């Protein structure tokens, strides 16, 4: 089982869109995917039309494996399940440690149709916290969307520093440029500079700034479902391909 975290320490960078479209692309490739909506402000459940369950707001939720399994909802797409947003993730670090233990009751409850999920995608809240640190340790990959702006450049630096300070493996970071406007020289220059500064951290694929992606809120579905031939859909497919899961 692969655990992939979509993370950014800055808001509004297209993180939730990445979680949703990436999870959808992985499921389309024939794998069983669980998308965990961990960002209380995030909207990945909303994009899949899944209502947050009342039961989910109860505390100590992740301690109870059966309730965890009960909260999982099938999306409308084959092979893609959702764990809807939850306002209380106090025990999430315990969840992360258990998800890795094959013998834990949690990993036994974490099955789709009798088999383990192939990939778990975590849509993470945007701040440095104990939770983020645990996510960084538990995840196999940390997918970081970076809009090519000066501010984003600084927050990305902070993230890499944080990894260094905490002794976390930086090779887990798979960053990519999002909300790219190719006509802006600022974008082009920032991208060139950052790729030079972090040659191993950035994927070749990037996601353009696109009305198709913005329409996700209106359509409440992954881009590839309502605009399958759009540039954005093709770029998310490239991103998934490059992650080589």
């Amino acid at each position, binding site marked *: 089982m692969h655990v992939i975290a979509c993370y950014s320490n800055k808001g509004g960078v297209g993180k939730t869109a990445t979680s949703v479209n990436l999870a959808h692309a992985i499921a389309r490739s024939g794998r069983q995917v669980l998308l965990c909506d961990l960002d209380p402000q995030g909207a990945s459940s909303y994009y899949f039309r899944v209502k947050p369950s009342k039961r989910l707001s109860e505390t100590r939720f992740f301690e109870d494996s059966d309730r965890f399994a009960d909260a999982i909802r*099938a999306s*409308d797409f084959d092979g893609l399940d959702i764990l809807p947003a939850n306002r209380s993730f106090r025990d999430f670090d315990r969840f992360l440690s258990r998800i890795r233990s094959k013998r834990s009751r949690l990993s036994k409850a974490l099955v789709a149709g009798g088999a383990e999920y192939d990939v778990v995608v975590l849509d993470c809240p945007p701040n440095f916290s104990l939770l983020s640190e645990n996510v960084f340790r538990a995840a196999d990959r940390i997918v970081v969307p970076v809009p090519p702006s000066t501010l984003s450049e600084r927050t990305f630096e902070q993230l890499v520093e944080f990894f260094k300070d905490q002794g976390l493996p930086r090779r887990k970071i798979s960053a990519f440029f999002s909300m790219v406007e190719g006509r802006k020289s600022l974008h082009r220059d920032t991208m060139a500079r950052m790729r030079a500064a972090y040659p191993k951290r950035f994927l070749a694929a990037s996601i353009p700034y696109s009305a198709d992606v913005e329409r996700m809120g209106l359509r409440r579905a992954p881009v590839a479902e309502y605009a399958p031939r759009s540039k954005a859909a093709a770029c998310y497919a490239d991103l998934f391909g490059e992650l080589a899961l």
Partner: protein
Amino acid sequence: MTSLIVIAGKAAPLVLARPCEGLRFAVGGALRRDFALYDCFDQPLRRSGRVLLRTGRDLILLSDDVAPISQKVDPGRGSVPAIASGAVCDALTGLPPLRALMVQCAGRAETLSVAVLDDMEKTCLRMQVITLSAQSGTATLVLTEPMRGYDRAHQRVVDALLDFEGASRGATGLWPLLLPGVQPYQSKPEVPITADEPAHRVAADLIRSSMSVSRQNEAGIIEDIDTEFLHDYRIGLRRIRSVLSLFRDVFPPEETDELQREFSELMAPTGRVRDLDVYLLGKPGFFALVPEALHPGLDLLFARMKTERDVAQRALARHLRSDRYTARVAALDARLTDPSGLPPGPEGDRAALPYAQALIWTRYRKVCKLARRIDADTSDDDVHRLRIHCKKLRYLMEFFGPLFPKKKFRKILRPLKGLQDILGLFNDYSVQQLELSRYLHPDDGAPVETDMAAAVGALLATLSRLQAGERTRVVASFADFDNRAVRAVFEELFHQPEEAGR
């Protein structure tokens, strides 16, 4: 869990017009195709609550609470597609090995794919609404496909579906709607008997019941669906002949003789096909009896048998379709159903229970007398005689079974069956030797291939050895049957003190 709901008639418009509160049905598409419903003749799928349905090229195996299993098939030219491998093939367990699938019902199917949406337009479950229309009846099949986390919506939809008139859960309800009046075939229906019923009525009931069994198999023999049709047809006739010969004097002697002749003549044309069927079914066993080097010879032998069997089968089918046969069985049927068609004979009015006890007791004593004499020097003919008596005893016990306590009956039937199995093998080996040696000396005097002659020769030698082996086991097996406990049960159930002197 998947649910399977059957609703009478063409219910799709009604179902779709009445979604549960807060839910909406979105019809994705409609497919109109031909359909066929398959099962064996004795309907093992129906009995186990399963449905094997083909719509177009899709073959699906359905049952309640289990996700449907499907595979693609080529409907081909035959009435039943070949299902040699695939998911459905793997899941089709519990079918009798000698039985073939056949079309039970066919017609047109309309399949609607429906998504059930909530107020957020999120799919909560999917359904397939399949309307099956055949000449014999119409039914609507709803298959629900629940989605994780939406159990409550699924349950509400299932409950609402079950509220429709004529709705039921599971596959069982489909059969009476599509095939009203068709009951699953039974090869040995139990004929109820009461203790004080006159014996001639018991005999007549048994004959009628067996005759009905035989006649139900006629179509399957003609179509050559599987070997069991002919087998059951013959068993029916044999049971009738046994009633006629074992129920002594329940009918007037001249009536009995005439019926005996009638049924023996019905049976005669079926023997050759059945014999060859038995050889062909036992083919792997015969191959195991001779060294591999001789297998090419056996291939020749079995190829010849197969050709001969197919020729004989076609002749039999022609016979069963003929006007002469049809008229003859129709006349027999009429006679059997006419209350005055089978008048009582000298013993006809005896009460069933004492009559049965006397017949079984006498036969039992005969079996014991013969069997106790059997040793290494006994002639084959005597062993055969013992086999016949055992068979008659078994028939009598089966016919009159309903009159006696089941548990005690089983206690004495089991060792009798054991003895019969060994006597049966002994007989099979002896008949097979006789039969196979005919292939060494064909009636038309044609030369015999060397390979085949060698294989048959080896087979004969092995069969003769096996027969000798069974013979030594007869004595041991009879000892099992002839123990104090079995004797006590026979005595208790069948021995009437006042009859002791008879």
